[in-house]
Structures are given as C-alpha cells and as structure tokens.
C-alpha cells in the first residue's frame, strides 16, 4: 500500500431524498439537508468542521455562477476555508478526493464535503448543448460507444435491460432513491421508447434534485467515532483528452490507468475477489459491463457475463450498485459522491436494506466528460485490510 500520509476516515454520510423536483427547498436548503445528515451521522456540529469542499457539475445547470459563494452560509463555512471542485460528471468523486487529500496531508482534522445538483431549476440537455438547439444529450454521445462495446464483446441485447431492472429493484431498498419502480420488468424496459439506440428510456438515468455530503476525519477522529468508520484505503484520479484520432472510447485509457493506480495503491491484486461491493457510475445500463471491463474487474468480453450470471446482483459475488445507482437517482454533481458515500456506508454496515452482508472492502467510481475524467476510491472497515 502506498503511504498517503494521515489515515482518513469517513465518519458521517448524508444524502437528501432525491426527487424530480425538491419543491420544498431552496438551493441552500438542498445542500444543507445532506450536510446536516452527514454531521448528525458523525455526531458533530458546524463548529467541529475545519474546512468545506463543495462540488457540482456546470454552473449553467442552475444558472448560478460559482455558487459556493452564496452557499457558504448554509454550510457553516464562514471564517473557514472553502473550495469548489468541478470535473464534469466525475465531480462528486473528485470533490470527495480533494476533501480526503486535505486530511491525508494533515492540513485539517475534520472536513465536510458536499455535492449537489438541482436539475429541476434548469435543463441538463440545454446545459450540455451550451444553450444551443439540437442537444445530443449525454446518451447521444455515449450510445455509439455502447454499440461498439456490444459489437466487440458479442453481448446479447438483454444485458442492458437486465442491468436496468436490477438497479431499479435495488433502489426499492433505498428510501433516498429518486425512482421507485416496483413493477419494472425486462419486458417493460425492452418495450420502453428508444432514446438513442441502443438506449431505451428505462435504461437511462432520471433527472434529479439532490445532494450528498460526507464528514472526513483524521485517524484519531476515525478511532473515536462511535459508529464504524470507513477507512480510505486508496484514491485515484485520471483524465484524458475527450476526442482525438485513435482514442479508445469503449475502454478509455484513463479509466484503465485510474483503476490500476487505485488497486496498486490499495494493495489489491484481484479486484473481482478482493472487493466485496462496488458503486459504479452507470447512467446508462450498458456502462455496468463496460466499466467492469474498463476497470479490469472482468476480462475482455467477460463483463456482460458477470451481469448475465447474476454476479452483480445484491446477492451475487460482486454486487454492483446495491443503492440503485445513477440509474435510480441522478443529481448530476452529487451522483459521484453518492457512489463514494454508498461504498462507505457498505463497509460501515450502515447501508440499511441494501446492505451487502459482511462487506469489508468497497470500490466507488465516478466518470465524466466524454468518458474522460475518472475518480475512484477503495474504502474498508479495516484501516489495514489484508488482501492475501
């Protein structure tokens, strides 16, 4: 394991109820709901926090420029250091990593990190098109790459439908999830409108209002916490150019390298057996097998077989997105932090109904841009997990 300086622990996690429109809250109220829950989980108050790190996707999504300035009061940040991270869709993950880094560097003992999106204030497709007509939508950018994956791997078409059903059934166990679709079936996914071939409506993420927050502490804070902390075993970030001749968009090199850097730093030699549960950023169903292969959890052409065999079910050998994932809740800027937080909740034994029994080591991943920004971490209930 690489020495990352001070050991860092997740001692509090909070999220809002994610909805199409949180019409009961202002923007400050939205971030506040998640932050307060994280503080309460950590058994702390505002004055215990040394610094605040906030992240979200592009400002035009809500039409508030550099919103950390008007959200400082809601996050008890006055008189404290506050930073704003923005790395596209991976931002919830990279925001968490920046906050972690402040603890690992022994800069601060207790850091609050928050990420959010209030999609209902604006329109993400408008935002993605920079306000122009004819938005491709995120699905329009990713769909051809999914078709390439399907063609190259020989995956049968039901794999995408199966992921869509699995994540929505998982979401029924998560009271915070936006979508609760108890009647979802493979047939319904298949029959839902085609948005961007091969992506059907029910294989696509919703637009959500929501926020996530975490309290991170140093080793002493982790040891003193009354609840089980999640120890940060390793983090990694990697970025690459989004478009150039010869780029592998199905298995982007930055994603491969990010995973390898992460496993090496954590001491993981066989992610598929040494990781108990994973929260991966899957906004469109085909990205589950694509990331299983893109992060070398499964071999080439093996990712869809893990899905097909039920291995990624909550009861399977390698559960993916027991929370319901991005397919069930997508407050864009927060979606990455939800992955990181849900992974922490699993190893803390705090995941509630969607707890994977006995989870000790969890992986979280977020990606963004044209599948070019990656943020990942491994957390464990054990500050020094053994992978032998």
């Amino acid at each position: 394991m690489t020495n990352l300086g001070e050991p860092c622990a997740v001692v509090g996690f909070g999220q809002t109820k994610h909805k199409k429109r949180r019409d009961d809250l202002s923007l400050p109220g939205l971030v506040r709901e998640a932050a307060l829950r994280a503080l309460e989980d950590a058994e702390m108050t505002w004055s215990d926090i040394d610094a605040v790190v906030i992240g979200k996707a592009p400002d035009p999504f809500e039409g508030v420029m550099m919103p950390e300035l008007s959200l400082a009061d809601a996050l008890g940040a006055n008189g404290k250091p506050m930073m704003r991270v923005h790395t596209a869709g991976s931002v919830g993950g990279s925001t968490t990593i920046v906050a972690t880094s402040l603890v690992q560097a022994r800069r601060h003992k207790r850091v609050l990190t928050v990420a959010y999106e209030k999609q209902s204030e604006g329109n993400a497709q408008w935002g993605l098109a920079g306000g122009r007509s004819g938005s491709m939508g995120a699905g329009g950018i990713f769909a051809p790459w999914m078709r390439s994956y399907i063609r190259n791997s020989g995956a049968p078409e039901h794999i995408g439908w199966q992921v869509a059903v699995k994540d929505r059934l998982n979401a029924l166990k998560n009271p915070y999830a936006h979508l609760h679709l108890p009647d979802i079936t493979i047939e319904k996914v298949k029959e839902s409108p085609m948005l961007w071939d091969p992506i059907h409506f029910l294989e696509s993420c919703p637009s959500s209002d929501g926020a996530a927050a975490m309290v991170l502490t140093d080793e002493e804070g982790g040891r003193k916490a009354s609840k089980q902390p999640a120890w940060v075993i390793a983090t990694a970030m990697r970025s690459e150019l989004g478009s150039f001749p010869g780029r592998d968009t199905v298995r982007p090199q930055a994603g491969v390298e990010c995973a390898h850097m992460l496993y090496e730093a954590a001491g993981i030699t066989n992610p598929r057996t040494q990781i108990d549960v994973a929260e991966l950023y899957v906004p469109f169903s085909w990205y589950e097998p694509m990331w299983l292969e893109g992060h070398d959890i499964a071999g080439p052409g093996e990712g869809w077989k893990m899905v097909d065999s039920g291995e990624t079910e909550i009861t399977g050998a390698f559960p993916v997105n027991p929370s319901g994932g991005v397919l069930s809740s997508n407050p864009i800027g927060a979606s990455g932090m939800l992955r990181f937080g849900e992974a922490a909740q699993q190893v803390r034994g705090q995941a509630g109904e969607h707890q994977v029994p006995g989870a000790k080591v969890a992986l979280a991943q977020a990606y963004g841009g044209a599948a070019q920004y990656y943020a990942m971490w491994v957390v464990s209930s054990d500050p020094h997990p053994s992978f032998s």
Partner: protein
Amino acid sequence: MCSTRAVTELQATTHTIEFPYTRTLGPVIGPFLTGLRDGRILGIRCRDRVLVPPQEYDPETGDALEPPLVEVGPAGTVETWAWVSEPTRKHPLDRPFAFALVKLDGADTAMVHAVDAGSIDAMRTGMRVTPRWRAERKGRIDDIECFVPEGGAA
C-alpha cells in the same frame, strides 16, 4: 442564435444563451417573497438581531433560523451607496439611479436595492428612503421597484 459581425476588423460569432430558470424557495425565502408580493418587508430573528433579507442560517454559527418572519421598515436608512450613471439592461431602472445598502427600520442588517433619487446630488449616506412598490407584484425582490427618498424628494 448566431451571426457574424466585424469587431475591430476581426471576424466574430455571437451567441446568446437564454434560459428561464425556475427556483423553488424553501421555508424562509418563500415567505420573504410572499411578504413582498403582499407589500410587506420581512426579516428573520437571529439571536438578538433581525436579518434583512432573511437568511436561512445564522451567518456566524451555521445554525438554522426559524420562521416566523418579522415585519420591518418599510422605511430605512442608506448606509452606503453607488451612483450608477449608465444603467445596464439588467438593472432595475433605466435612468441614472443609486444602488444602496438600506438598513430598514427594525432591522440590524442592510439589504441591497436601488434608490431612485433623480440626481446624485440628492443622494447622501444616512438619508431616509422608503419603498416604491410595483403595481403588479409577483413575489420577487423587484416587487419593490426601488426605494425613494422619504418625503418624495424624487
């Protein structure tokens, strides 16, 4: 929306980004804007102070501030001011006016708004002002069209 025009002999494209954002207001801003619609200016108690515009959270401790809101003003005192001689299309008035921090009677903090004083010579720190309400109000900060000198100097 795009077009080309010459800018100091350089070619350029113009692009307008437009969007009607819809904001939900929550338990403090909502009642504040409801008050404005009804022609009342409301603040919120924060320990021994009254904050206007009302905040959802104590700016010093981060603690939540609880409604109900309390009525202040409507008149107040100009704490500081800036004379805008050439308004932009985003400004509340299309003729020269002042932006000012106005501390309303009964409030402990000042709010930013416009003052229509006619001339810079009519402006001074410490002057008394009172709101000029818009005829049709929707529950927005600009339901107060602007403040005017008390006694109707403008």
